[in-house]
Each structure stands twice: as C-alpha cells, then as structure tokens.
C-alpha cells in the first residue's frame, strides 16, 4: 500500500468533513483535523504484522 503523508490525510479528512458536516463546521474543525491527521500518520508509520489482531 502506498504510504499516505500528513497533507494527504488532512486533505481527505477535510473533504470528508465538508461532505458530512458542512462547510462551516468543517472550517471550525480545521486545526483539530490537522492534528488528527498527524496522529493517524504516526500510526501509519508503525509496522503491524498479519498476526497482530485488534
């Protein structure tokens, strides 16, 4: 799978927020979404194996 970078993740989250919550709400959450993108990216960078179950 191609690695996502923080910018890609943040952009995808922002688009999803616009679609689900509307423009005004998506804008209000912008800085929180960027922080969340950084956190999701940090998890993407961690190796998991097939045998690692949730």
């Amino acid at each position, binding site marked *: 799978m191609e690695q996502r970078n923080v910018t890609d993740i943040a952009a995808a989250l922002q688009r999803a927020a616009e679609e*689900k919550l509307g423009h005004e709400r998506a804008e209000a*959450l912008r800085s929180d979404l960027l922080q*969340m993108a950084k*956190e999701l990216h940090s*998890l993407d960078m961690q190796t*998991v194996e097939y045998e*690692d*179950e949730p």
Partner: protein
Amino acid sequence: MSLERLSLVEAASSIRNGSLSPLEYVQALLARVDAVEPRVQAWTTIDRDAVLAEAQQLEVEARKRQFRGPLHGIPVGIKDIFYTKSLRTTVGSTAFADFVPTYDASVVKKLRHAGAIIMGKCVTTVLVFLDPGPTRNPWNTNHTPAGSSSGSAAAVAAGMCPVSIGSQTVGSVGRPGAFNGVVSIMPTQSRVSLAGAFPLAWSLDHVGAFSRSVADLEVLLETLSDSPMPGHPERAAGPKYRIGVLRGFFHEKAEPESRAGIDSLAGKLSNAGFLVEEVALPPIFDLHQALIRTIVRCEAAATHQDLIATKPESYGPKLRDLVQMGQLIDSTSYLRARRIRRHYQRDMARLFEHFDILLTPGAPGPAPAGMATGDPVMQAPWTLADFPTMTLPYGLSGNGLPLGAQLSAAPLHEGLLMDAAKAIELVIGFTARPNL
C-alpha cells in the same frame, strides 16, 4: 469521631458489633448532604425515602445478627451512568433527564447483594466526556473537581458517603481522585463488569471507585471483583516493593510543585526501605496519545451515532467535536490503532519485569481554577495499557489543594497494587480534609 468521617472499614465493623445503627449512620450522612451539598453539588438524585427505608430494613437484620455481606449498612454513591432500577439515570444529559432503568447495573447488583445502601446518583460530566457538570471541588469551590466522575470523588471528599463508584475511559477516576484528595482505583477492565453502564468507548471504559483509605477500596473491590485478587505475601512481609519512578514524559507534563512532590515522595519511600529506581519508557510510549485519541474518537462516534442525530442539543461542545471527528476516521485506521495497542500493552508490561509498581504524579498539578475538568494526561498511558492504577493524596499545594501520586501495577495485579498502596499510605500519612 463524627459519623461522616468514618471509613467504610470502621463503619462496617461498628455495624457488625452493634455499636452503630445503619439508620443512624445514613441519617448522619443525609444531614451532611443537607449541610454541604448546596456548595458542592455532587448529587444528581437522592431518593431519601428509599435510602431511609433500606437503612431501616438493614438495621432490623443487623439486630438479628443477620448480615447480607461485608457492606451491610454502608451507603455508596453511584456515578450517574450506572443503571439503577427504579432510580433515574441521567448520564449528565438532558437526553436522559427522565430515564428510569428497569434493572440494576452489574456493580449496583453486587453492592446491594453485599448489603450496601445505594445512597444516590453522583454527577457525571455530560455523557461521560469533558463538558463539565455543576459539581465543585470541596477543597475550594472555585476549582474543578475534575471529571467525568466529578460527583463521585467530591461526595467522598466532602464526607457525604464513605465510598463511591466511578468510571474511567481516559482519566476520569485518577484525575478526580487527585484533585479531590481521595484514594481512587481503576482496576483492570476485565476485573469488574461494565454491564449496565452507559458507554463512551467500549474497549477503554473501566469501572472505578473512590474512598478515603486504601483498606476501604480493598473491601469494595473484593465485593465487585469477578475474579480473586491475590496479593504478594513475600513483599507484604516487609517494605521491599520495587518502585519504578517515571520521569521523562511525566515530568515534562507536571507542574514544578508536582514534580518536586513526587521526587520528595520517592525519597521518603527509599528511606522507608522501598527499592526505588528510575525507569525508562519503551519507544512505543510515544504513540500512546495518537492511539488513545483514535480509539476514543471512533468508539464514541459509534456509541453516539443515533443519539447525536436525534438530540444534538443534548451534547456539550467537546463531546460533539469528538464524535464528529470520529465519524471521519476510516475503519482500517481504527483497527490499525487497536492492533498497535496490543504492541503497546505488551511492551509496556515489560516494565514489570523489574518493578512491582510504577510511580507518577496523579495529575499535572492541583485542581485548576474554573470548571474545565483538567488534563487527563497522567492517566491516559495506563488506561490504554489496561494496567490497574490507584491515586493517593500525599500533600497539599501552596494554595491548599490536594496533590496526588499515581501507582500502577501489571494487569490483574490489584492485590499487589493495594498491598503496596497500603504500605505507601502509611509512609505518606495524609490526614488533611476539606474545610467545608
């Protein structure tokens, strides 16, 4: 000693030997509620008639030397997220203002079976997250009692009941414990059933409890526990517990007064014969905030999917942000976080190869002024790891508010944790109480 300061152990023993009447005890606590509740606001609901009727019945049984269990005649406060049959359960929200469950949560059932009196429902923050309820800190009512178990901790600190039940998803037991100057415990998740508790995030929710002594929590947890809690006889024979002091992240997040307090406590423990050493955290620790936030967001989004759509006005702003952000995370990211959490738990558990107990501050500092519930940063690593964790008050800050120390043990080692906590409690000798 006035009845409102009796510990659970003292009250239970006095009821057993006939020197204390359950009715007299509960009447004294209700009088204490009348005196301090207008300032503390720890309770959502107290059904006085039901409480007095139950106390009367328990008194009749006690006179006949019939005791239901170790909590016979002991009033207990219940966080208002645990279902109580015929007693409303509001979850701190207008959405449940008139909700009256038809059955008891598992913990409530166990408490009643052991002879406890359900004193009433204690305030939770709105829907168990960070938006505060009305409760004030008994030590200074201009300060937060923390949350989400705000009322449960404040009621015990204010002497309105000897013990109470709370819950923790991130930092909702340890932080109120530290801010209110009481003893708290968050056991391993599997030790105490959450059945009949309103959830926030299923994989992280834990039952918790508050008291004014470790011995009281031991009795309470033995009553609630779904499995035995062996201690550590060899260590209990002398103060030889191996204490790992965590600095690094925990020092950085602590205020200077709290850092100095924990260092001083570590010195006292060392002088008292405990084996105290500094511990280094494993590299995966750096991911703990990303992990717990991702999991809480996703699970809260699922918990609230229907309710936020139908009753958005019943949400506080912080929970609304959490749920809406969780709705944007894809399922593979959530499952990735759950899978990495297993690595985190495994790597963190290795700390106990060399230590019995890990010591950190219970909160960054004393309770902040205002109603915002404070930072759960000291609890999050342990809730994520599912390590049983206690807080103990160890002193007062410069502004007269309590400071708490936090102790963690390996999963399901609550017996060892409480044995060590009792030994540490003796070294600390904390006796201060709020001046209400």
